[in-house]
Each structure stands twice: as C-alpha cells, then as structure tokens.
C-alpha cells in the first residue's frame, strides 16, 4: 500500500510538472502586455495611443501605458534602469540622447532609408556613433499661428509662403495689432529656447561654430547680443513679458486660444489641439518671418526607443515593424495631422483649410538652418540647458543686460564643454 502511494505521488508530481510546462509554453505564446512610457497624459484623441490600441486589437496583445512627465524623467529613468524596471517601449525627446547605452540599436532591425533623412538627423541624433537608439515618431517644427479676427480688424493680410514678412514688418504689425486689433498682446512666444533660437539663427547667430573636430562657443557674439536686446524690447513693448521673464506658470497657448494674442510663435504639435478646441475665433497658420540671414525654423519631435533590458523587447520591435508599414503609419499621421517622418507617406487632409495650412507648415521644413544643425551636432544641451534659460529670464526681466547674460553663459558653457570662446 505504501509503495502504491509513493508511485501515485510520483505520477501526480510528474503530471503536474508536464501540465505546468505546457501552461508556461502556452503563456509565452499567448497575448502579451506591451508596457509603453509616454511623457504626458494622452488625450482620447492622441494619435500614438489610438494606434497602439489598433495594434492591440489586431494582434490580441494588450497595452499598459505609464506616464512619466518630461520634467521627472531625468530623476526616474536612471532609477528605473538600475532596477531593471524599464518599460518595453519609450516615446521620448531626449532619453535616447542622454542614455544611449540603455537602448537597443534599432538600426540593426530596420532599414533606415524608409525614414526622412532630416527626421533621422534631428530626432535620432546619432552624432557620436552609428547607433540608432530610437526611430522617428512625431516629427514637429516651429511655426507661427495668427488670429484672423484681429488681423481683419486692422485690415492686415497674412503673409504668404512666397512673400513672408521681414522682422521689421513683424514688429510693426505686432504693435498695430496691440493698438487697434482688439488683442491684449500683439505677439506671444512659447517660453522655449527653441522658439527664441529661431530669431538668433535668422539674425545670423549660433550657439557654437565647428572648429575641426570640435567646436568654439559663439553664443555671446555681437549679433546674438543684438538679437537678445531686440527680444527684450519686444517683451517690454507688445509681448506678455511674464512668460519669458518667468514668474508665471501660464501657457501662452491659452492666451492665443482666448483671443488675447495676435501672432503666436509655437509649433506644429499645437495644430491638432487648436483645430479641435478653438471654436470662438478664426485663426490660421502663416509662414515664419525672415531675418537678415534668412528664414529659420527648428525641427524636433519624439522618437520610439526600446530599452535593452525591457522584458518584452521583441514585442516592442514587433509593434514598431507593424507601426512603420505605410498603411499603419498613414493612419497614425491622419490622426496626428503632423509632418511625416516616413518617406512616401504624407498627410492629405480632406478639409480645404487644413490642407492650405498644411502646405504652410510643410514649407517651414526647408527653413531649417545649417547653424541649427551644427548646434545640434555639438549636443551642447547636455551641458547647461537650464543655465541658458535662467540667463534669458534674467535678461528679459531686466535684472542683467543682454551682454552680461550671454557673456556669463558663454563662459559657463566653455568651462563645462572644454570648447574655447570665440568672443
């Protein structure tokens, strides 16, 4: 009886092991959860989120979205990486640039020629190696919105792609809008370095210049000081000064939405939101103004990266392969209403006005300056991005002069980067 019991127990154990192994096999082949990290809470209209849902519905997998705000990423990402707790897919503007070793080389998985070369250069930022730590997802560019109602009130006609305004015309019209256009501010600009830098490039300035294999710091050049002085004057005259002087958490996009701004410098990422949400006024898109050194626009955007230690990195790659097919990317682009980073795929809006605006937005891409590309390739932002912002804030607030702000920052940048000063 004892022997029979032992044999029965052994059979039961073996049976359990076989069953467990089968179940495990089934689990690895069944539906999986793709953990995706975003930098802001997605709305119900969010293009990437809805595309992820399409993929989940089509493949039977599930998605698990986590949001780590942009400003918290630098503290949380390193901790997550150390704890091997990174998600499977990350939509990011800078993590792949700051921590390239933590991501797999997607260049080995994808034919990079399917992407627009400019998108790869600006978003993937593979300046120091051939590694492609992310693939371009959302391709954005700075652009200018205008309040049609305010323009009509002063009899102003928006500039065209073939005949953009000069900076002199911009200033004159911004003042006119403030005085007679029924708006509180003639012009507003996001509190973002990239928006201001367009003025710098259009005036012939730059952060750095190439010097052999290295760089020299040129941020305190005479033309850059003159640009900042003019910008301070604009803020004192017809812009909401509190935005650039700091001291307010207001978003100038809200001022524009409320009809308080005549001309608004922002980017293509706002187009979809404005299209869906602004109902109380007429607005449009106009080409950016031209400075003495020509026009300037700044490209940017976010990419999709796969952490090397992700639990389901194969699943993330499967998603990316699905995402970058022409059909699926077209669906994504139609939702995003943005620029395309995939060769041969373009957004073709049915709405006539949107189609007209889209042409203006597309025309901005050709305005990206060489100086911007050189600045980006130096990766100077890895050193003192916030110090630059603080210097601008102090100068706009009138605490220090434009020259002191830029000279002090140039010295800091030179010290940290090891690049000599040109001025």
């Amino acid at each position, binding site marked *: 009886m004892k022997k029979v019991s032992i044999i029965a127990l052994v059979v039961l154990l073996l049976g359990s092991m076989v069953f467990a192994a089968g179940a495990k096999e089934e689990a690895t082949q069944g539906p999986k959860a793709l953990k995706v990290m975003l930098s802001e809470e997605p709305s119900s209209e969010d293009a990437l989120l809805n595309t992820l849902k399409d993929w989940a519905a089509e493949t039977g997998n599930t998605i698990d979205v986590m949001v780590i705000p942009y400003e918290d990423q*630098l503290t949380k990402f390193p901790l997550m990486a150390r704890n091997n707790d990174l998600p499977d897919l990350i939509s990011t503007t800078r993590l792949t640039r700051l921590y390239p070793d933590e991501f797999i080389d997607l260049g080995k998985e994808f034919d990079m020629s399917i992407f627009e070369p400019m998108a790869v250069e600006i978003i993937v930022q593979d300046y120091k190696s051939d590694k492609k730590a992310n693939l371009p997802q959302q391709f954005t560019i700075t652009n200018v919105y205008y309040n049609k109602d305010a323009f009509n009130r002063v009899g102003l006609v928006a500039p065209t792609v073939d005949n953009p305004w000069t900076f002199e015309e911009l200033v004159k019209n911004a003042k006119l809008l403030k005085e007679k256009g029924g708006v509180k501010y003639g012009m507003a600009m996001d509190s973002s370095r990239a928006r201001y830098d367009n003025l710098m490039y259009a005036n012939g300035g730059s952060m750095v210049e190439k010097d052999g294999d290295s760089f020299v710091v040129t941020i305190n050049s005479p033309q850059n000081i003159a640009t900042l002085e003019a910008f301070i004057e604009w803020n004192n005259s017809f812009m909401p000064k509190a935005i650039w002087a700091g*001291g307010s*958490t207001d978003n100038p996009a809200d001022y524009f939405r409320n009809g308080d701004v005549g001309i608004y410098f922002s980017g293509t990422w706002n187009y979809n939101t404005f299209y869906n949400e602004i109902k109380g006024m007429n607005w449009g898109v106009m080409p950016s103004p031209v400075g003495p050194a020509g026009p300037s626009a700044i490209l940017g955007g976010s990419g999709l990266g796969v952490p090397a230690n992700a639990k389901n990195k194969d699943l993330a790659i499967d998603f990316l392969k699905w995402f970058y097919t022409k059909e699926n990317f077209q669906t994504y682009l139609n939702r995003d209403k943005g620029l395309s980073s995939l060769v041969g795929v373009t957004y073709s809006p049915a709405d006539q006005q949107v189609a007209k605006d889209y042409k203006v937005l597309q025309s901005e891409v050709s305005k990206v300056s060489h100086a911007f590309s050189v600045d980006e390739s130096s990766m100077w932002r890895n050193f003192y991005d916030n110090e630059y912002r603080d210097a601008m*804030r102090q100068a706009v*607030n009138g605490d220090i002069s434009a020259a002191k702000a830029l000279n002090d920052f140039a010295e800091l940048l030179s010290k940290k980067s090891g690049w000599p000063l040109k001025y």
Partner: protein
Amino acid sequence: MKTPYVKRHVTAFWFFIAPCLILFSVFFLLPLCLSVGLSLTNYDGWKTMDFIGLHNYTELVRDSKFYDALGRTFGYTLFSLPFKVIVPLLIAILVTSKRVAIKGLARTMVYVPSLLSHLVVGITINWMFSAEYGLVNYLIGTIGGEPMQWALNPRLATFVISFASNWASTGFYMVIFIGGITNISSDIYEAAAIDGSSPVQTFFHMTLPMLAPTTFLVTLLSTVNLLKEYALVQGITQGGPGLNTTFIIQFIFDKGFNQMQYGYASAISLLVMIIFAFIAFVQFKISNGGDK
C-alpha cells in the same frame, strides 16, 4: 559585573530605542553619510563618479548664484516669519475666546488648507493671483484699478508665495497654539480679573509669557519650513521673475536633478544643512528653548 536585572534593563533599553534608531539611521544618518561621500565626487547621477576632493566646496564658495539664492531665502524667511507666528496666535486666541460663536466651524475652516497638498495650494493661488485671468486682478479691475503685476514685480511675487505659505500653514500652527492656550489654568485668569487686569494687559503679561514654549516651537518649525520652501515656489512662480524667487532648495534641486551635478548639489546641501542647524541653534539659545 552586571547583574541579570541590569542586563535585562539594558536589553529593554535597546529594544525600546531600536525602532527609532533604525529609522533615524536609514532615513537620516545613511543619506547624510552618502551625501558627504557624494559631495567629494563629480557624480552625475548616472555613471560618472570620480573622487575630486574638496573641489565642489571650493567651487561653491566662489559661486555668486549660491550666495544670491541664500540671501533671497533669508529675506523671504524674515519677511514671512512674523506672519507665520502672529496670525495663527491671534486666530487661536479668537477661537478659544468665550465670546466667539461657531468656534468649531471656524477652527475647521482655518485648518482645512493645512490638509491640501502644496500642488493644490499652488493651483488655487495661481487662480487668485494670475496676472492675466486671476480673481484678484479681476476684482481690482471692477473697481477701476490697474491690474497688479504679480508675476513681474519681485516683491509682489515673493508676497504671493508668502501669502500661499501662510494660508496653507496657519491652521496647523493654530492647533499648536490652541493646545498651549487651553493648558493655561483658568484660575490664573480669574485671579487677574479680580485684580483688575484688562484683557490687553492679561494677554501681554500673562498669556504671551505662558505661551513662550509654544511660541518657540512654532517659530522654530516655521523658520525651518520657510528656509526649505520649495513646492509652493515651483507651483506659483517657478523661481521667477528672473531668479528673484529662486530660493536655496530650488537652487540645489536645479543643480542636482536638472543639471545632473549631484556631487555639487550634495556639497551645497551639506553646507546649507550646517547653516540651517546653526540658525536653529541660535534660536534655541536666544529663547532658551522657550523656557522662562
């Protein structure tokens, strides 16, 4: 030679203090030691960590922005501290007075802001003091006044943060003062009344001196909290206009978590901790710990 009784006594002593000792070690001593170690390196929060000796400290003593941030912090603390102590004291006197009705409701309403997170306080204050769409400027406009530049004038911006900080903490300090006031024996007040003391005389010559230990506690807590003000600043002014409301904790946070200079931020933190401890020590000495 220790007797079994003494041994048991010593063992019991260690058992009693062990929870506190462990928590204190894990959450204070260990981070402090780590901070001291990090302050001697160029740790960037990721992979770079070279020993650089006292370099961070020599940089720090030459950093004019450090002194600016510290000076602003002291200015803000000195400006806000009287309100932090006096306002809760006066409210506590009111809500313990026999002549005041609906004391329970009043206490609750004053205390509620203390329960809010600083994020919610920041949003509420922004709603009130926003230069463009704020309630206060709207009210000023309705009576024909010019809108106040809350976000552009450094003094007004500092005032808004101070107002928010006071609003959020008054309830907490009021409760401490109420505890102190109710502990004063009513016999003393009766004796004073019989001797012909007026309410004002009673307040200044009896209540205030007898509340000295409580006042010291509130002053000490307020000072430390004002010196460490961070979340409200982020939620209301983000350190602006310019750098006029960038206080020392924001400065440390910016160096450490935004510029990834963890070593340098640790050095600042240690120096600031010593300065704050010294201020608390001076307060303790001046007031004799609240004792008469």
